[in-house]
């Protein structure tokens, strides 16, 4: 996918990326008392890369979110989720019982740690969702010449 010929669209897309990402982080932090959370924040975060790829060309967007960065992030989010759950288990609570992470029986402290655990889970969800969305877009919009190069590398690896 080439970039658009329109300078205006390219410039606006490039300049609005930080705003979109900042808003995605705001949405992530308001999962409790607003329409937010990991899924929504992740999708909005990924939409910034989609906008970059659409307006400035596939290669420009792929350089902003390269495969060697996104591919490890996919399982990392799941690991964060699982790690917080298992940490609660190790701290003596049930799986994903965030309050147990506090290590104290004071209900006030447990309530605080409940919030921390919840935010940690949301961060894990957001990392996986945004990486998955961006990967889906970039893999599906892959231009033919990049696809040909990938195929050639694969065939050479098969022959070797």
């Amino acid at each position: 996918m080439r970039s658009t010929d329109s300078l205006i669209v390219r410039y606006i897309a490039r300049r609005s990326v930080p705003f979109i990402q900042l808003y995605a982080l705001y949405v992530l932090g308001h999962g409790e008392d607003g329409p937010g959370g990991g899924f929504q924040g992740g999708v909005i975060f990924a939409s910034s890369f989609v906008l970059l790829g659409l307006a400035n060309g596939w290669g420009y967007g792929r350089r902003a979110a390269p495969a060697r960065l996104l591919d490890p992030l996919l399982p990392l989010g799941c690991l964060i989720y699982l790690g917080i759950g298992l940490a609660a288990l190790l701290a003596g609570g049930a799986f994903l019982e965030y309050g147990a992470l506090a290590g104290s029986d004071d209900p006030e402290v447990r309530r605080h740690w409940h919030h921390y655990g919840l935010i940690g889970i949301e961060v894990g969800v957001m990392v996986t969702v945004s990486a998955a969305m961006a990967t889906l877009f970039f893999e599906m919009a892959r231009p033919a010449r990049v696809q040909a190069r990938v195929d050639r590398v694969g065939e050479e690896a098969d022959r070797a």
Partner: protein
Amino acid sequence: MSVLEIVAAAAIGLGSLLMLATAFGVAVFPDFYTRLHAAGKGDTLGQALVLAGLLCLGGDLTLVVKLVLIVFFIFIFNPTATHALARAGWVSGIVPWVRGGQDPGAPREPGA
């Protein structure tokens, strides 16, 4: 009813009427560019008026910031989308409409 509420009601009414006019413009104008003209201008001003009216109703700081952000984003994104649409129409060879149905200039090739 305070003065601010009257201002708010007037702004919301004017803005929603402007958005209705936009809708009618897009629905009844004769060709693509004239419809785009209605869509790009009327909607941008209409939404700003409605949101300014909501701003007059007051609220805490986050509410004000969100309203201003929405106006700001639409003021940037709506004209950009309109520009991209007009460009796509021009590149794909849509000829502007003139009264009488004649071409305004030489016939254009798609992709030119």
